[in-house]
């Protein structure tokens, strides 16, 4: 923290929960939220009363206000409208998705307003930033943010944009498994293959890293973006609602959003409890109205761990199947794996741990905290970037291309130039020829993806190489060069080898937001920030005025009481004045500017009245 540029933080921007951490006195630590929580739900909502909610509060009304609560925005960030992922999300998510006006990105309708996805993620990041600022007591402006290893350039850029919206300079985007391994390897030398088994709230990711001499090389990634802790919760919820229906004549709790919200919260809590205890007790008094004047219905149930395991063993089996496939793709046998790092709260579940142990034939690592490890790694990287000359050891991070990079060929096929899992920075060259006689120009469409069909992959950018020497097809050689910098910027150039005619493109990943839009959103946020600062000034002004009025009123109370000792009205006035003063004190304590403003006139009138009455006393005494 001594760089003079303020603290730097590492952020694990998760699908379900997010965590912020920093290196403090040489030790990476998670920063608690202002309410003392270590995890902040990645949930944003506009409450029915119009208030914007972020984090825990937003999560707690996610079911009762489903259409105006956005969760799992990470599944949508940087995605294009019409993509398979967005179509899947539209089926699964209760809030309304709409296409962007021009850039064909996906946006979210909440109430009257349409939010861009980076904006929503930006709100979560801003919350974490505010927590960090409250923790450090000074502004925090720089961060390292983690993303899944399979995120493409657009998604990474969108995450950077989210950081900008939150007022953060994103020093680097790093892969989550890399970050986890970084935290795992902090302060020790590791040279082995490590599997990061990350079962979070909404997604499952498995990554294989080859770590050697401080080089963290991601050699394989896989996962399921619709498999996580929420699926486990849903199994428990179904079990509870079925049991409730059996006991209460077929009453379906799912028809009542309040009941469903409580069931969801209780299911999650019970699931977490069962990681440490053999049985979880679920008490939900007054869960559902009894109807027709009858008393409300309660739910009381015990969930044994065995029952939970029976309900969810199929989900765990899916995780293992994905892991098996990923290892196979990377050409790694379980026996070659030197360590398995468990990440994500769900990996605390004994069934998951047993399954991992059985699959790899070894105990998974217990040296790192599954909820915190990714954020801690990001904090370590942020610290290393911020303090390169202060004794901090810069850790060399070698990330890989998450997907194949290539160009579209005649017939709509996709030609890979740089295969996935290639360590960056890298470059590759490929020679192509023309497909038509006398062809004088060629279109180079740069794509990213895993499909042989070009239209199933993502178009990163395109350009036209014109001025090609006219010749029969196949006789003109065009050299295409792909270069990827350490920052993940893709440069593609094409050159007619006979004429030397050259054209190139730098693929700047786009989040779907135009620069103008981004500026507008940032300006709005700035306005909000200024409003907050102004309201802070307003609060101070109000506080001073209120404290002065209260002091003057209280000073006059003895005189007024004397003056009106024989008057019923007088006594009443003092009582009422006391009530006003009490409310003013409460408003001061609550820092409620609106209430202080509302009370200002009443305090002023009370003071005037008291001055008049106490003047009467003085007059009488003077006679």
């Amino acid at each position: 923290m001594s760089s003079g540029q303020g603290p730097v933080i590492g952020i694990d921007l998760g699908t379900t929960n997010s965590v912020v951490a920093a290196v403090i006195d040489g030790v990476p630590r998670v920063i608690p939220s202002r309410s003392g929580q270590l995890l902040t739900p990645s949930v944003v909502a506009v409450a029915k009363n119009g208030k914007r909610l972020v984090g825990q509060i937003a999560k707690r009304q996610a079911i009762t206000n489903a259409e105006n609560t956005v969760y799992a925005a990470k599944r949508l960030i940087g995605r294009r409208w019409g993509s398979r992922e967005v179509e899947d999300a539209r089926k699964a998510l209760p809030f309304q998705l709409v296409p962007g006006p021009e850039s064909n990105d996906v946006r979210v309708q909440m109430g009257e307003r349409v939010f861009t996805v980076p904006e929503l993620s930006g709100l979560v990041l801003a919350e974490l930033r505010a927590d960090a600022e409250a923790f450090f007591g000074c502004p925090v402006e720089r961060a390292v943010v983690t993303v899944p290893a399979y995120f493409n350039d657009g998604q990474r850029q969108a995450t950077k944009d989210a950081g900008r919206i939150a007022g953060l300079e994103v020093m680097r985007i790093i892969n989550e498994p890399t970050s986890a391994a970084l935290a795992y390897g902090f302060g020790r030398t590791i040279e082995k293959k490590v599997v990061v088994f990350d079962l979070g709230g909404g997604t499952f990711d498995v990554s294989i890293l080859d770590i050697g001499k401080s080089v963290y090389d991601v050699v394989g990634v896989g996962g399921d973006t619709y498999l996580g802790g929420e699926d486990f919760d849903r199994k428990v919820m179904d079990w509870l609602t079925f049991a409730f229906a059996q006991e209460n004549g077929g009453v379906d709790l799912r028809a009542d959003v309040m009941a469903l919200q409580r069931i969801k919260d209780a299911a999650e809590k019970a699931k977490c409890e069962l990681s440490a205890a053999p049985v979880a007790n679920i008490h939900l008094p007054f869960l559902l109205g009894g109807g027709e004047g009858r008393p409300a219905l309660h739910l009381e149930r015990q969930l044994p761990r065995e029952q939970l395991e029976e309900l969810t063993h199929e989900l765990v089996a899916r995780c293992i199947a994905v892991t098996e496939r990923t290892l196979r793709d990377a050409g790694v046998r379980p026996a070659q794996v030197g360590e398995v790092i468990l990440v994500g709260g769900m990996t605390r579940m004994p069934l998951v741990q047993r399954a991992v142990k059985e699959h790899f034939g070894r105990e998974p690592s217990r040296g790192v905290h599954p909820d915190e490890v990714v954020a801690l790694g990001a904090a370590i990287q942020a610290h290393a970037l911020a303090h390169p000359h202060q004794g901090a050891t810069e850790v060399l991070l070698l990330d890989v291309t998450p997907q194949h990079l290539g160009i579209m060929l005649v017939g709509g096929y996709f030609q890979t130039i740089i295969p996935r899992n290639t360590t960056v920075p890298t470059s590759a060259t490929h020679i192509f020829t023309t497909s038509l006689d006398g062809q004088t120009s060629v279109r180079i469409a740069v794509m990213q993806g895993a499909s042989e069909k070009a239209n199933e992959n993502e178009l990163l950018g395109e350009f036209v190489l014109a001025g090609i020497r006219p010749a029969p097809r196949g006789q003109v050689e065009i050299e295409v060069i792909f270069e990827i910098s350490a920052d993940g910027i893709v440069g593609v150039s094409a050159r007619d080898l006979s004429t030397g005619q050259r054209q190139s493109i730098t693929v700047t990943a786009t989040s779907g937001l135009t620069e103008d839009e981004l500026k507008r959103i940032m300006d709005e946020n700035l306005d909000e920030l200024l409003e907050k600062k102004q309201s802070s000034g307003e609060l101070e002004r109000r506080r001073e005025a209120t404290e002065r009025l209260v002091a003057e009123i209280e000073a006059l109370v003895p005189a007024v009481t004397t003056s009106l000792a024989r008057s019923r009205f007088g006594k009443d006035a003092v009582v009422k004045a006391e009530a006003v003063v009490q409310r003013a004190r409460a408003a001061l304590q609550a820092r409620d500017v609106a209430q202080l403003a509302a009370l200002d006139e009443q305090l002023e009138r009370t003071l005037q009245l008291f001055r008049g009455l106490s003047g009467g006393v003085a007059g009488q005494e003077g006679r």
Partner: protein
Amino acid sequence: MSAAELVERGRRAFNEGRREEARRCWGEALALDPGNEQVRAYLLNLAAVPAPSATLPRPGAPVPLPGPAQGEAEPRRPRSERAEASAPVPLPAPERDWLRSPVTLPPTGSPLHAEGSLAAAPSAPSSDPFAPPPPERDTLSDYAPSPWGQGPTEPPPVVLAEGGGLDLSSVDEQSGIRPLVPQGGPARGPSGVPGGPNEIEVWMQGARELFALGDFSGSLELIERILKLQPGHAEAREYLQQNESTLIAMYESKLGPPGAIPRLAIQPEEVMWLNLDHRAGFLLAQIDGTVNYEDLFALSGLPRLDTARILAALLQQGVIS
């Protein structure tokens, strides 16, 4: 002071002829316990009975409690004594009955108002506040026009100083609202029938009266009935807003600062033995020592008034602190 204590204090004040104090006590009791029909009935009847000077022949003379109370405990005084003390005041049915048939209140000047006639009117509401409610009337022709049409009998709230003085109305202090309708003003006919005692006008008049008496919940109930039939009723909409904002201010003033964090004041296993509905159960489940009142309003998903009412009730019952 609890609602029950306020009710009792109001009864004592009423019996001793201090109607203003009685009204204030019952008003406060109703604010604490909006579902208390007994208090509503008292307040309703307080509006219907003649002015204090007419009902109090001499200072300190016993005056009957207004309105019956369902399910209340046995009175402390013997029945004979009560009969002696009873004054010939009209005694309304509990409010819910009155709401069903607004004309069940006997009119001023009817035989029921004649001194000593109470015992001779078997079908009339009993002066015994603990007696069962009177039978409901079915037809409008049974009675003369509603006494609500005569306007309130009470003077306006006390204001210590004109123009810039301290406004003593606690409601004003809490919500900043101003009196809506000049008390005693003529009833307006929303239906367009001049002076026609139609149902909506009777409800509207009742809503005005209850608002003036500080029974904002009762007023709100009537307003909601009117708006169900006539959603565009301008005056009703105005009253709706005023009632709601006043009630919200009242309940919120009981809760304390919006940033305050409520906590469960009883053992979690004791919650099961409370008498709550599922909405209160939901709100109670959210109170875990980390969420403040303002956040509870946001996450409840209920209208602010309902949330404030439930929280104030939980606070009043000592369930939360």
